[in-house]
C-alpha cells in the first residue's frame, strides 16, 4: 500500500473548496487528502474539511505568476512541517492545483508504480531540460547572475548549469525529496516551475516525466471542463485545467 498524501492547492471560496474536497474524497478517499489554502485567512476558517493548512506566503499570491516568480516554497514548508506532526506514514507527496482533477481511483498507485519503474524521486508533467535553449523562463533567469551562483552553491552535480522546467501540478515526490526541497528559499523570486525541478535535480534527486501519454491531459491554458468524461475514456489519470467541477460527475461520485 503506497502512502501518498495528496496536497490540493486552492484559493477558492470555502464552499468551492468543500465541493472540490467532496469530489476528491469520492475518488481518492479522505485520509490521503490535505488542502493547502492560499486564499484569505478568514475564508480558511470557514472551510469545513479538517485536513487543511493555511499557507501564509506572499510569494504564492502573485498575479502575473511568471514575471513575479510565483513560489510554492511556503506550500512545501507548511506541508512538510505538518507531515512531521501528522500521525501515520507519508512516503510520497502529490501536488495538485485546484483545477487539476483526478480521474481514476488508483491514481496514486499508478504514480508510485511509475516512480518505481523509472527509479524516480520525482515525476512531473512536462519535465524538460531548458538550459541553453530559447525557453522564456530560462532566458529570464539566465540574465540574473545570482541564479547561476545559487545553483553552483547547492549543486552536487558535475554540471551545475543544468536547468529543468516542469508543471508543479500533478508532480509526485518521494518524501525525502519533498522535505529536502522544502528546506530552501529562492535567492530571489524564481517561478516555481523552474525553481522546484532545478533545485531537486541539483540536490541529487532523479526527476522523470510522466511521458506524453499523460502529459497530453495536463496543459497550462484554457478550460478542459468539457473533456472530463472523454479524457477518462482515452486513458487519462487526471485532467488539467478543469475550471468547472462537473455537477453531474460530482453528485454521482459523492452519492
Amino acid at each position, binding site marked *: 500500500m503506497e502512502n501518498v498524501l495528496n496536497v490540493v492547492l486552492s484559493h477558492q471560496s470555502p464552499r468551492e473548496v468543500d465541493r472540490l474536497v467532496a469530489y476528491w474524497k469520492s475518488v481518492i478517499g479522505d485520509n490521503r487528502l490535505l488542502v493547502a489554502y492560499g486564499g484569505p485567512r478568514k475564508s480558511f476558517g470557514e472551510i469545513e474539511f479538517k485536513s487543511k493548512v493555511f499557507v501564509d506566503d506572499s510569494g504564492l499570491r502573485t498575479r502575473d505568476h511568471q514575471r513575479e516568480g510565483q513560489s510554492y516554497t511556503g506550500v512545501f*514548508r507548511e506541508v512538510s512541517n505538518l507531515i512531521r506532526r501528522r500521525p501515520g506514514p507519508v512516503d510520497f507527496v502529490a501536488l495538485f492545483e485546484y483545477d487539476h482533477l483526478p480521474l481514476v481511483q488508483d491514481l496514486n498507485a499508478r504514480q508510485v508504480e511509475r516512480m518505481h519503474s523509472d*527509479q524516480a*524521486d520525482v515525476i512531473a508533467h512536462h*519535465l*524538460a*531540460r*531548458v*538550459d*541553453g*535553449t*530559447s*525557453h522564456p523562463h*530560462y532566458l529570464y533567469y539566465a540574465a540574473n547572475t545570482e541564479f547561476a551562483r545559487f545553483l553552483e*552553491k*547547492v*549543486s*552536487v*552535480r558535475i554540471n551545475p548549469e*543544468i536547468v*529543468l*522546467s516542469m508543471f508543479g501540478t500533478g508532480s509526485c515526490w518521494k518524501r*525525502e525529496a519533498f522535505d*529536502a526541497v522544502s*528546506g*530552501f*528559499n529562492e535567492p530571489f523570486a524564481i517561478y516555481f516551475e523552474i525553481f522546484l525541478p532545478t533545485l531537486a*535535480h541539483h*540536490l*541529487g*534527486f*532523479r*526527476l*522523470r*516525466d510522466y511521458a506524453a501519454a499523460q502529459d497530453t491531459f495536463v496543459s497550462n491554458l484554457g478550460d478542459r471542463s468539457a473533456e472530463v468524461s472523454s479524457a477518462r475514456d482515452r486513458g487519462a489519470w487526471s485532467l488539467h485545467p478543469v475550471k468547472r467541477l462537473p455537477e453531474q460527475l460530482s453528485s454521482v461520485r459523492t452519492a
Partner: protein
Amino acid sequence: MRRILRSIGVSFARLFGTKIVDVESGRTLGKAFAISWRGKVHLIGLETAVRPTFLPQERLTYWKQEIGFTTHQPPDFPNERSTRPGNVEQQESN
C-alpha cells in the same frame, strides 16, 4: 492594444514562418520568423524550447556557415544523493 497586435504578429509567424526542423531528429519543431538584426538572430513565434547549433559541413566553405536548431533529450539523470559531497549541507531557510 499592444498585446493584441503582438498576438496577431505571433499568429502570423506561426502560420507563415519558416519551418524549424530539429537537426538531429528531423522532427518539426514549429514555424517562426528568423530575422537577423544588429548582429543577432531574433526568433519570433516559435513555441518549442530550442538550442541553436552550427551545423557540420561536408564541403569546406569559408563564406557560409549554417545554424540549425535542436532540443535537449528528456531529463534522465541518475540519483546522485549517495555521491553527495560532505560539505554540502542542506541550507536552512535564509
